[in-house]
């Protein structure tokens, strides 16, 4: 296999993996803080991507403007959704709380996909930006992809700084480590949970716009992204941004090579296989954070 093809596939894989990592950040943040495994997480990306694509088709706004238009509503939706539906479950017994969150987020997934499918149609679409192309010998990189990757890096860095430096970030990390301890120190955990859900949703909305700039989106594609994000946080560790980015890129590259060397329809299998293999081979490594 010629080296330039390898590099080309590698670059595509890194870009895809970076987007997966963004999905994983939100899922990991929400799980780490609020202990909610949001099954509808990837579907939020799908729906944001569809809405942004439709918006682009109607207005031809540039992607930054699209983000300004779609991210705040998703952020507010995330906050309201948590406050109205998920928060009240905290008063129930542990087992019922788990059942409740699984059912509520799955219900949300089905509703979002179905409503979007009915309103906007089930076809695949994207944000077809025309842009310059960088050529390094035979390796071709669209400028759009450079911007997307820059966006991923900026968002990762911003999130990292936010969690490490801001007071709210410290509060969130406190709640992640010990909810009751943080509450004793005056952290309003109900608000921290809802804000985290909102921020996680906001991140995945940004990812939705970035995703639709290169890959096609449709209302039903979300769950497979959630599975990938879940695999990534199992590999990279809950609340570990660098680990998630590395695991995401690894997964993206593995999928790209599978698609090229074998067949594209087998690429989605990689994440599930990786997940199963990790569960069999490294159970001890996971035990540390799996259950308290």
């Amino acid at each position, binding site marked *: 296999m010629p080296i330039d093809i390898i590099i080309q596939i590698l670059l595509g894989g890194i870009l895809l993996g970076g987007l997966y990592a963004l999905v994983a950040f939100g899922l990991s943040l929400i799980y780490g803080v609020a202990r909610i495994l949001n099954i509808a997480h990837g579907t939020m990306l799908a729906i944001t991507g569809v809405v942004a694509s439709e918006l682009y088709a109607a207005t031809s706004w540039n992607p930054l403007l699209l983000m300004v238009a779609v991210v705040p509503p998703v952020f507010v939706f995330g906050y309201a959704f948590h406050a109205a539906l998920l928060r009240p*479950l905290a008063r129930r017994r542990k087992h019922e709380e788990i*059942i409740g969150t699984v*059912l509520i987020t799955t219900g949300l997934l*089905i509703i979002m996909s*179905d409503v979007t499918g009915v309103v906007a149609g089930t076809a695949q679409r994207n944000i077809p930006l025309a842009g310059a192309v960088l050529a390094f010998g035979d390796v071709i990189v669209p400028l759009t992809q450079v911007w997307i990757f820059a966006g991923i890096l900026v968002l990762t860095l911003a999130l990292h700084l936010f969690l490490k430096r801001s007071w709210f970030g410290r509060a969130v990390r406190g709640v992640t480590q010990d909810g009751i301890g943080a509450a004793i120190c005056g952290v309003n955990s109900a608000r921290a949970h809802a804000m985290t859900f909102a921020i996680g949703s906001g991140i995945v909305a940004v990812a939705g716009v970035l995703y639709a700039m290169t890959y096609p989106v449709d209302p039903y594609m979300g769950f497979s992204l959630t599975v990938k994000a*879940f695999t990534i946080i199992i590999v990279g560790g809950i609340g570990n941004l660098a680990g998630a980015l590395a695991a995401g890129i690894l997964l993206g590259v593995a999928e790209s090579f599978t698609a090229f060397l074998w067949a594209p329809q087998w690429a989605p299998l990689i994440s599930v296989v990786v997940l199963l293999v990790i569960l*069999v081979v490294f159970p001890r490594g996971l035990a540390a954070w799996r259950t308290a």
Partner: protein
Amino acid sequence: MKFDAGAVTGLVVLAAVIAVVPLLGGAYLTTVALSMLVSFVLAESWDWLGGEMGYLNLGHYAFYGIGAYSFCLFLVGGAALAPSFVAAVAVPAVFAALLAVPMFRLKGDYFAFATLAIVPLCGLLTDNLSGITKGSEGVSLPPHYVLIPAYTMAGLLALATVAATLALTGSRFGYALKAIRNDEQAAEVVGVRLFPAKLRVLVLSAGFAGLAGAVQAWQFSFIDPDSMFGLSFALVPVAMALLGGSGLLWGPLVGVVLLTGAQQLLLIKLSMLQATIYGATILLIGRYLPGGLLRARALQRIPILAPLGREHHARIARRVAAAAGDALPLPPIAAAADASILGCRDLTLSFGGLVAVDNLTLNVAKGEIIGLVGPNGSGKTTLFNLISGVYRPQRGALAFDGRSLVGLRRDQVARLGIGRTYQIPRPFGDLTVRENIAIALMFREDGIVLAEAMAEAAPFAAFAGLVARLETRADALGLQERKALELARALAGRPKLLLIDEVASGLSTVEVRRFVDHIREIRDRYGITVIWVEHIFSALAQVVDRLVVLDAGRVIADAPLADAVRDARVLATYLGAASGAAR
């Protein structure tokens, strides 16, 4: 004896309704009833994991799809009907056995999520392996009309499912699942072997679901990946079981009837957004009724319906008469004064940088009562955890009654004859005191059958002062009663060595005296060796033969009581240097 009148009546009524439907209703009603029966089998078999064992298997629907595909592919491939149905049970069962290894590494919502990923995985495989599965085109059976035979089979399968549920809830195996649901570690230290129990229930539920899929596919005569592995159908049985009431005998059936009824109405009234309505139903069940309709307070107030909201096992347990004798049914262990029962040599365990147990060497002779003391964090509970197999030592040897304990599972350690209590009690909260003790009786080395165990639990409860609380759920007990239950449960496991972790703290003076008498009796009458961790020094002083003092994971004193309390290091680290120096 196992089946109570209410459950049998329910079974007979269900059989009668199943028999009457095709006689009175037409083909449409029979078709609807058939899919209800199939859904019921799915929901009820899902609940064996979900309700009994507390594991949310969101991938249960995959077994249904695999069963349907196995059946159709065998039939199309030229196999006869019977082998095709056998394949519909066997293939999902084997698949479930393979899945059990990775999936049961996970617990709680992680397990739920990972199992949900199985459904699209199966869909993907079915789509891609088109050489075998015909891919997205789906599989069509040759034209046939099998409504009545398919319906009959679904009816029989549904009745078999209820019967299986009854057998399960009233069996030793069922109690292993209930113990797992409550507390896996506590289940293990009373002798329940976890993985085989989990594996068996998953395989059993997969077999039933697979057969249900085959029956439905037989009647449909066409299947494709979307209908068999579609995510929007995958949670239907789960939603049904939860709507009615997970863990309740008739819960899944109620949920199935309500949701299928609603679905049929929607099919007639609505042409689009059906999935939305269905999603909203799931969402609302999750928000308002995660415990199920039959447990709802409004229904619990209606006397006829109230029993439906109680878990089935509670009724079985109450039928066994309480019989409290004064002696525990434990054969005394022959005293051999100089024989060693437990030997720890150079035992070491550290958590990160903290060395919790540091080169600890300790020998315990048969029939001794040892008081284990030391400041907080000195490694007492960690030592108990090492002996009972909760932790594995990083270094050192651990021998019990002549065999090494290193590398044994917790249930193996328990079956060898090591019983323990937890400092923070870990009873099986949603089971009664009687059931808690009975589980230990059933899963010890020479375990007895369920009915005997239920009866034999009474003397143990009486010994611990819980005879009036036999039928009380453990999570309704006060702290002292829970500690007493810990002791009763540990004794029921017929231990040779009993590890007692701070049972007396918080007791009144009179209660402490009674407890000390208990400890003495445990040793004198039944020959059980005791290691007792306790901070109430006066209590220890009344009964122990030898005092072992730990500090920072090391033994700093190991001597008869009178000598140990004069040891300078013991005075400094544990009894208080200031008071010693002042004198």
